[in-house]
């Protein structure tokens, strides 16, 4: 008996020594691991603001619903109750809830409070909730291709959300603490915290109100002229700030709507042949080189043969003696080709380089295109003639606008920017510097170009771009598209680019419509009215006073010119029905929308000024 007692005592003693002394560290760590809990601290994703501090994108916590399939005893019953509430197919839920190899499956992520409350009321065992951030875009699809979007894990998938992912997502932290069996923190025990850093906010240069106006005006016109789509950009030429950047697409129902976040931000990602809007570069280069003056006279027929190609003006006319300023106002292809030939390929190509064609703009943006400008020695005669009138090269709308902004800025390039400032995790706002441009044109050339471009609006092809109270300078563009490997006579880019006030430029804008119907193929008819509307709004929004009390002189002359040509310059405001209404078949068809616009006298089918 005594031996047994001694042995037992010895065994117990040995075990105590083993636990408390020999393997002390191991058991201590096991116990600690049982109590220690590491709680991840999510870093809130940074917000995106417009230039006035309005939220364009922000993250708000929402409940995600999850389930433990090992606890769920009736997957079919659960799925039947959950499916109608969370908007997930019942079969999908059954599949998830039946996977007993897992202890965690999502039922639905970042649901609205009402949905979460409804699921909570079901009181289903094994179903629980965790908070997760959900990205909201309070203004809907406003500037959506610029902003981009985020994935289910909150990672940027496009636009600035993708480009600035590194700064927006912040730095997650963690909290290590000891918990009791009920999950409560044990006081005066181990507690370590690595603070999370909220993501950096972006303050964009966009103006929400102007962006909306641009999108609405552009969409209305795209609908009215049955274009495939359109883009528009507005820039402050004194800073390079992009105030609005819109992409609009016409849907199958015939109505145009602002592009979604999944679409390309076409002013930066897509290229096009600019056509006559590119003539400002040809004329500016020729003036700068001293090849021509504004009054240099040319003998201008309505066609010209270059090598084996024949180039024509948009309208037939007899041979005329035209000064350069008249050639510009009338947008004569023949005259411009003559000027291009006098300038030469090298100098024209140098001008393209100087204006920033062929390289991405200063804006950092995913998928931004460089444009296509072939080497001058590849142009030959036809290439030079084509390039002089804006063919044979491809530019992004932003690059084209940059050329106009340069003239507006006194001949100094204006590097565009899309991000005005960032706000760090500690709330410190850090302004992004305004880049310095380089001089491309002399003051004398700029003054002449402004005069030429003002005349385009006063009595030339761009009369619809006139704004009451101000003087506008600009240029129309009507460029044939390549269809089936050849330039089409039925498919065009209609564009207008310019700036205002011409005397002291503040804003430059570009509007491009992709394939408007044939009757509205001219930039002066399809794009100029949109330019006028959005420029007028921008000037009013930024309280830019008319420079002179006589500012309506151009307006009066332009109105008279438009009336003489039978052109109605108003943008018909046709509201597109909601996309879901369209899906439900309640939308008005495209044809009926055009009929409505025509009936309202907003769509003209008559002869228009030339390109």
């Amino acid at each position, binding site marked *: 008996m005594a031996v047994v007692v001694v042995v037992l005592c010895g065994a117990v003693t040995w075990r105590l020594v083993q636990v408390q002394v020999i393997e002390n560290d191991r058991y201590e760590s096991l116990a600690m691991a049982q109590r220690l809990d590491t709680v991840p*601290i999510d870093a809130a994703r940074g917000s995106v603001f417009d230039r006035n*501090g309005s939220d364009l994108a922000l993250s708000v916590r929402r409940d995600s619903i999850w389930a433990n399939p090992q606890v769920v005893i009736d997957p079919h019953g659960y799925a039947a109750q959950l499916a109608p509430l969370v908007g997930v197919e019942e079969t999908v839920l059954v599949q998830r809830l039946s996977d007993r190899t897992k202890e965690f499956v999502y039922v639905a992520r970042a649901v609205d409070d009402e949905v979460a409350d409804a699921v909570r009321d079901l009181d289903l065992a094994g179903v629980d909730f965790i908070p997760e951030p959900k990205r909201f875009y309070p203004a809907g699809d406003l500037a959506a291709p610029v902003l981009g979007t985020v994935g289910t894990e909150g990672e940027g998938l496009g636009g600035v959300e993708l480009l600035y992912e590194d700064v927006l997502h912040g730095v997650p932290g963690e909290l290590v603490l000891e918990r009791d069996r009920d999950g409560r*923190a044990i006081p005066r025990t181990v507690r370590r915290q690595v603070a999370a850093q909220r993501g950096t906010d972006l303050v964009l240069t966009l103006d929400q109100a102007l962006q*909306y106006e641009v999108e609405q005006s552009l969409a209305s016109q795209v609908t009215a002229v049955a274009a495939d789509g359109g883009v528009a950009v507005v820039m402050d030429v004194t800073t390079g700030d992009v105030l609005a950047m819109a992409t609009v697409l016409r849907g199958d129902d015939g109505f145009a709507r602002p592009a979604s976040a999944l679409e390309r931000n076409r002013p930066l990602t897509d290229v096009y042949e600019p056509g006559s809007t590119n003539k400002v570069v040809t004329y500016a280069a020729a003036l700068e080189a001293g090849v021509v003056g504004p009054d240099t006279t040319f003998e201008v027929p309505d066609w010209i043969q270059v090598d084996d190609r024949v180039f024509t003006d948009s309208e037939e006319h007899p041979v005329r003696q035209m000064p350069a300023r008249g050639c510009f106002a009338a947008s004569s292809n023949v005259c411009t080709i003559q000027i291009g030939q006098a300038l030469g390929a090298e100098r024209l190509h140098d001008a393209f380089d100087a204006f920033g064609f062929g390289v991405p703009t200063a804006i950092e943006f995913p998928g931004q295109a460089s444009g296509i400008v072939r080497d001058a020695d590849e142009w030959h005669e036809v290439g030079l003639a084509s390039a002089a009138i804006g063919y044979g090269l491809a530019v992004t709308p932003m690059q084209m606008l940059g050329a106009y902004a340069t003239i507006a800025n006194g001949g100094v390039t204006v590097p565009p920017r899309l991000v005005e400032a960032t706000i760090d995790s500690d709330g410190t*706002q850090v302004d992004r510097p305004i880049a310095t441009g380089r001089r491309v044109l002399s003051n004398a050339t700029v003054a002449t170009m402004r005069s030429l471009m003002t005349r385009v609006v006063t009595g030339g092809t761009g009369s619809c771009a006139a704004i009451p109270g101000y003087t506008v300078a600009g240029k129309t563009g009507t460029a044939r598209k390549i269809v089936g490997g050849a330039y089409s006579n039925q498919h065009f880019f209609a564009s207008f680019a310019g700036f205002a006030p011409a005397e002291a430029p503040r804003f430059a804008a570009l509007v491009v419509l992709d394939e408007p119907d044939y009757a509205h193929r001219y930039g002066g008819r399809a794009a100029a009215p949109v330019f006028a509307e959005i420029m007028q709004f921008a000037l009013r929004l930024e309280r830019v006073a008319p420079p002179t009390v006589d500012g309506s002189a151009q307006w009066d002359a332009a109105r008279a010119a438009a009336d003489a040509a039978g052109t109605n310059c108003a943008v018909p405001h046709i509201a597109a029905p909601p996309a879901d209404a369209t899906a439900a078949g309640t939308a008005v068809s495209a044809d009926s929308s055009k009929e409505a616009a025509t009936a309202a006298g907003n769509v003209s089918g008559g002869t228009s000024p030339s390109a």
Partner: protein
Amino acid sequence: MTDVALRMPAVVGPRPAEEADRGARTRPRLEVVSEPQRRVRLAVTLGVLVTVASLFALVAMSALLAQGQFDVDRLGGELEIEQQRYEDLRREVAEKASPAQIIAAANALGLVVPDTTEYIEAPIAAPSSEEPDATTSTLAETWAPAKVSLGDRH
């Protein structure tokens, strides 16, 4: 010095004659207590008292700490709820301030975009319109300090 002490009950002012007369009948039995024994008893009593008091103090301290932790947890929960409320309200404000909502509200009130814009020439002496624009950024004044206060998310 004697090493013993007489312990007797306290007597309040009886006369010696009476005391002597009564003492013969009711005199308490006197004991001789050693000094070390008295100290031991005193020490034990004090020790027990201190131990009990310490235990009570420990329990009370623990309860206070636990209560403090509960308060911290509760305040943390309230903080999260208020932060959530702030985010929801901020989102609501942003939605209501979006151009589409403002246009819809304006249309509902019967406001329309004018067909034409008329400009008037202001008198030279008229005050300029240099007052701060309503759309001027307030990020530095509002959001920046709020962002710091929002803290982390658990």
